[in-house]
């Protein structure tokens, strides 16, 4: 074992998406990882187990995914940037403590390398079937942030962004990778340390007697402290008031839960990110994310060679959903084509925002492989006819 390598492995690398996600986390200052082995996300945990000593960090393999999610919440309250990774079955197990993270406004990152489901499904093969679970999987009303990398480079970049968003808005942020992106090996450029944007946790400077742990700032996000700082905070998954005290009554619920939602909705324009190609002149727009965007790009190019005016809208942030751009496009295009490796998830959001003003055509895939570009092309042709 060589000497510690530090957090940022500046340089050009040839690595897979799982490893790149781990490196992104380390680069942005993650020093705590708890996880449980699961295909196709195991490489994230393996990399973290190897690398954590380099940053004086902690790696622990927990007894299950429930415990993994619980441990990263605890670590976050001890003041560390923390992460876990998993795939479908483990993602299901994490839903309960994901909700605790939302309710207690705990920054942390969860990487889900999606595989085919339901249940054990296709452990080694691709799926994009957890997109709605990402949005709605834990009980109760909440908003979430989910990012969708389509390359190992983006696994690195978006994991950094995920941490920065989680610290900014104080909630668990999801990196919704997939088996192909996770296992694909490509060039990943890791920039010099001083070029990596790191958003640190906003800690109160109020005296303990004056500090209200759940009194939001102007952006609707409260300032945080860590255990051991002398603030004697109380943190609970129960409905709570600004002191953090349980107040299991409707008026407090009506004040608190809408704020948890509004802090994302009102800041949605700052959070939402997408990449567009040729949408200004398009009459058909392909809406896609993750690995499917790389197949869709090919289909769009094929359609353009046929002389069709086709644009591509790739969701980098899937949640919150970019409602405004879809609404706007719907007023001036013929239709949306939505390929995804599931039997209908994000397409419902496109359809909702299109609101009948443009056709929405789904290109489903049950999982286990990516689409054939010809399949997507056929639906583009249908949409533009």
């Amino acid at each position, binding site marked *: *074992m060589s*000497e510690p390598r530090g957090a940022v492995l500046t340089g050009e690398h040839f690595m897979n998406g799982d490893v790149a996600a781990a490196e992104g986390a380390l680069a942005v200052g993650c*020093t*705590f990882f*708890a996880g449980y082995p699961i295909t196709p996300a195991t490489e994230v945990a393996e990399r973290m187990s190897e690398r954590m*000593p380099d940053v004086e960090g*902690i790696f*622990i393999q*927990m*007894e*299950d995914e*429930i*415990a*993994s*999610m*619980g*441990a*990263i*919440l*605890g*670590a*976050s*309250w*001890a*003041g*560390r940037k*923390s992460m876990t990774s998993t795939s479908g079955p483990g993602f299901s197990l994490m839903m*309960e*403590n994901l*909700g*605790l993270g939302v309710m207690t406004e705990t920054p942390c990152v969860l990487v889900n390398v999606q595989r085919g489901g339901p249940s054990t499904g296709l452990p080694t093969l691709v799926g994009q079937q957890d997109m709605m679970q990402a949005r709605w999987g834990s009980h109760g009303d909440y908003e979430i942030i989910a990012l969708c990398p389509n390359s190992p480079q983006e696994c690195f970049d978006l994991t950094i962004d995920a941490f920065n968003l989680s610290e900014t808005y104080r909630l668990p942020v999801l990196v919704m990778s997939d088996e192909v992106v996770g296992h694909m090996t490509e060039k990943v450029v890791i920039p010099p340390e001083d070029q990596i944007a790191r958003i640190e946790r906003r800690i109160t400077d109020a005296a303990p007697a004056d500090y209200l742990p759940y009194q939001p700032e102007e952006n609707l996000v409260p300032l945080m402290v*860590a*255990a*051991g*700082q*002398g*603030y*004697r*905070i*109380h*943190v*609970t*998954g*129960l409905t709570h008031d600004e002191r953090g*005290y*349980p107040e299991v009554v409707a008026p407090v619920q009506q004040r608190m839960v809408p704020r948890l939602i509004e802090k994302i909705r009102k800041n949605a324009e700052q959070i939402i990110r997408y990449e567009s190609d040729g949408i200004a002149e398009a009459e058909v727009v392909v809406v896609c994310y993750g690995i499917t965007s790389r197949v869709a790009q090919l289909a769009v190019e094929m359609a353009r060679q046929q002389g069709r005016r086709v644009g591509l809208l790739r969701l980098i942030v899937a949640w919150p959903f970019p409602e405004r751009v879809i609404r706007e496009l719907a007023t001036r295009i013929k239709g949306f084509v939505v390929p995804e490796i599931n039997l209908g998830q994000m397409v419902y959001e496109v359809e909702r925002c299109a609101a009948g003003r443009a056709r929405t055509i789904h290109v489903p895939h049950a999982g286990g492989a990516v689409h054939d570009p010809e399949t997507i092309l056929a639906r583009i042709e249908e949409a533009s006819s």
Partner: protein
Amino acid sequence: MNQKAATAAGAGAGGSDTAAPPAPDVREAHAHPKDRLLRSDRLPHIWCPTCGIGTCVSSFVEAIEESGIPEERFAVVSGIGCTGRVAGYVNLDSFHTTHGRAIPFATGLHLANPKLKVVVFSGDGDLVAIGGNHLIHAARRNIDITIICVNNFIYGMTGGQLAPTTPHGARTTTSPYGNSEYPFNVPHLVASCGATYVARWTALHVRRMKQAMVAALSHRGFSFIEVIAPCSTLYARKNRLGTGTDLMKFYHDNCEVRHGANTAEIDIGFQEKIVVGKFVDIEKPTFLDRMGANLAQRRGR
């Protein structure tokens, strides 16, 4: 406090025959010496009269003082249930988590900041049923945290259902004809998994319980205290055992202090003898000790 000091000073100076006696400070008179460690602004608490949980909390705050560990270093983590509410009443950094998941949360807190003194305070249903897997793995790893498990043999918060500790034959709302299951012998469970401090007391043994808590807080490694506590509202009523006081009398008459007892032999039967005492107190490298040693070895230090 200031007013009291001023009054005392006035008395010392001889006072005056004509001055009206100062009005007694009612708040001062009613202030409990342990209020500092309790969130008194949240009282009254939710626990029923004669419930044993409050007694455990009293012993706990005394143990904190006696341990000499700075209060700022404590973090109390609870799960869900009657005992799960303890975190909300102690004036320390405190976390009320999800059902059964206090130990993983506490594991994260501890590993991320080993200077914290992390205490999990929760009930038998939370820690041994839904959280049973986390309990045995934390014990196996010798995670340096303290677990206080209040065992009242029943699910109190939800109205008296079967627990994994309910004695064979006992009635609950989901075992109306008597419990057909074998209960966990919790000290034996955690001891067999590697816990390095294991004790059992009852809510009657307030002094011994406090001493055990001081020992557990000072212990390096996974320490576990089971406290048998009365639930008069549900357990005693469903089983026609009288009041909470009757249960305390039962503990008085039927507990046997047997330090170092073989934990395999301390099962609790329905209204049978309860063996209490300190069963395990050993030293063993913790998870972090072993992690540090492995790294040092690989780095050739």
